């Protein structure tokens, strides 16, 4: 009974946090782009004259979307048109289930792992559900009965199936180093130290792996500079025929993807919830000296560290989105098949060689 309650509480907690963060991210994107372009950005929405630098904007947006006309193209496919946003939203949320957001929380004798699903096949789970994100886009493109939408859907299918290969292969090196697909074990290993002082984060083992993984993942999320399926200035994209809350779901799924991908970057390459030199009982510094902390403080520090890392990568992704222009289609494909893919295979070879030298 208690176990069930804890599992359900974790699921709800993670879901609500994700959705709330995604709502805040819509505001962050508008505000950050405004700052980068020397504008003020969203600052009009207020509650009883209270504005708090426009933070009520996401709420106003939500209410607006609820009351907008929900238009279905008369010659489109009504059932698939309704299904598409749901299919787009679902995998984005589900992927977070295998991401550990903290170590173990102890209350009395009760041990609660701070992760929704401790899966042995963690990384494969992410790849598998990452592959499902295509369908929302493709369904939307087809069911709208609009040539621009269809073009967007086709572009999305070609782009995402190509970059899936790159995402998968660029991480093989990291999996070889950690010897596991389970994300919480990966993060545990990143709590150790290399040479006695450097945190054993994935980025120090696999710098090339990260450089390949990062653009490939951004291409999977279909954001600028890889936003060909959307391509506002040329084809408007797969959600041309969507309005109201159905469009809202696509919009929301994109921001949830940003957050989930940021969580993945930090989990795989930047130690996840780990704080350098922080162990279960407190800080132990490599230059001598230690600082004991109660268990609850350690857990909160871990949660905080994970949150800060996610926030950093969200910031970085928005920064990239508002800095770079869009790739051309041939450039996009060339980057994947002749750039990232051979380098990823090279990375696997080098990693294998080094592992063979070290471990014999």
């Amino acid at each position, binding site marked *: 009974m208690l176990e069930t309650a804890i599992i359900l509480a974790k699921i709800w907690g993670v879901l609500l946090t994700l959705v709330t963060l995604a709502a805040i991210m819509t505001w962050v994107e508008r505000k950050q782009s405004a700052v980068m372009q020397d504008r003020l950005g969203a600052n009009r929405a207020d509650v009883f004259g209270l504005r708090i630098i426009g933070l009520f904007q996401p709420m106003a947006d939500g209410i607006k979307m609820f009351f907008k006309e929900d238009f279905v193209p008369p010659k489109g496919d009504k059932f698939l048109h309704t299904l598409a946003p749901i299919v787009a939203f679902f995998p984005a949320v589900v992927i977070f289930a295998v991401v550990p957001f903290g170590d173990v929380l102890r209350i009395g004798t009760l041990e609660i792992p701070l992760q929704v699903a401790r899966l042995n*096949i963690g990384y*494969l789970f992410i790849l*598998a559900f*990452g*592959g*499902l994100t295509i*369908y929302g886009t493709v369904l939307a493109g087809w069911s709208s009965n609009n040539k621009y939408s*269809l073009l967007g859907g086709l572009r999305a*299918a070609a782009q995402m199936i190509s970059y899936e290969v790159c995402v998968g292969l660029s991480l093989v090196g990291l999996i070889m180093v950690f010897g596991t697909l389970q994300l919480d074990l990966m993060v545990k290993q990143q709590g150790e130290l290399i040479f006695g002082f450097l945190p054993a984060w994935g980025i120090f083992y696999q710098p090339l792996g990260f450089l390949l993984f990062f653009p490939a993942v951004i291409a999977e999320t279909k954001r600028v500079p890889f936003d060909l399926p959307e391509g506002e200035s040329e084809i408007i994209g797969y959600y041309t025929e969507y309005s109201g809350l159905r469009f809202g779901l696509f919009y929301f799924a994109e921001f949830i993807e940003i957050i989930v991908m940021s969580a993945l970057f930090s989990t795989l390459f930047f130690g996840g919830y780990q704080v350098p030199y922080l162990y279960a009982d407190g800080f132990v510094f490599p230059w001598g000296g230690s600082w004991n902390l109660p268990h609850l403080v350690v857990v909160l520090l871990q949660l905080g560290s994970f949150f800060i890392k996610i926030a950093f990568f969200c910031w970085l992704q928005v920064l990239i989105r508002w800095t770079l222009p869009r790739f051309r289609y041939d450039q996009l494909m060339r980057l994947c098949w002749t750039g990232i893919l051979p380098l990823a295979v090279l990375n696997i070879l080098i990693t294998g060689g080094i592992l063979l030298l070290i471990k014999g």
Partner: protein
Amino acid sequence: MIIELLTQIIFWAFVILTVGSAIVVVFSKRIIYSAFALLFTLFGVAGLYVFLAADFLAASQLLVYVGGILTLIIFGVFLTTKLHGMSIPEQTHQRYLAIIPVAGIIAILFYVFFSVDWFAHASAAEPTTKDLGKLLLTTYLVPFEVASVLLLAALIGAMRLARPREEDQDD
């Protein structure tokens, strides 16, 4: 108690999803519906693999069939059915001849179904990834490598067929 009930509900949901969408795949008159329904069939089968404690197989099923092969099928359907306004024949041929291979497949499936002790395998519920990896690189290394060479050959062959011949390029 509640966990068991939830497990039961989820299991039957997967069963209904798999069988229901498979019926759409077979009986739908429009090929695009068949293709999209196949998405749910393959997803449901992956869910059933989880209930049989085959976690690696379930993830690979999603990764390879749903994420890869089905995308290509839908891509193909997109390009053939709608853009040119032509309809491709979607009715059935040779209904009675088809009975022979179908009966054969059903016989094999039933044989496997009754000859394996599913409950013993499913209740063991150990992660399978590590053992599978070891078996693939030791006992089954040769079949594994032969299969990959076959796939590579298919890949090169497909590229050779899809690319225009060199003498055609001059025109």
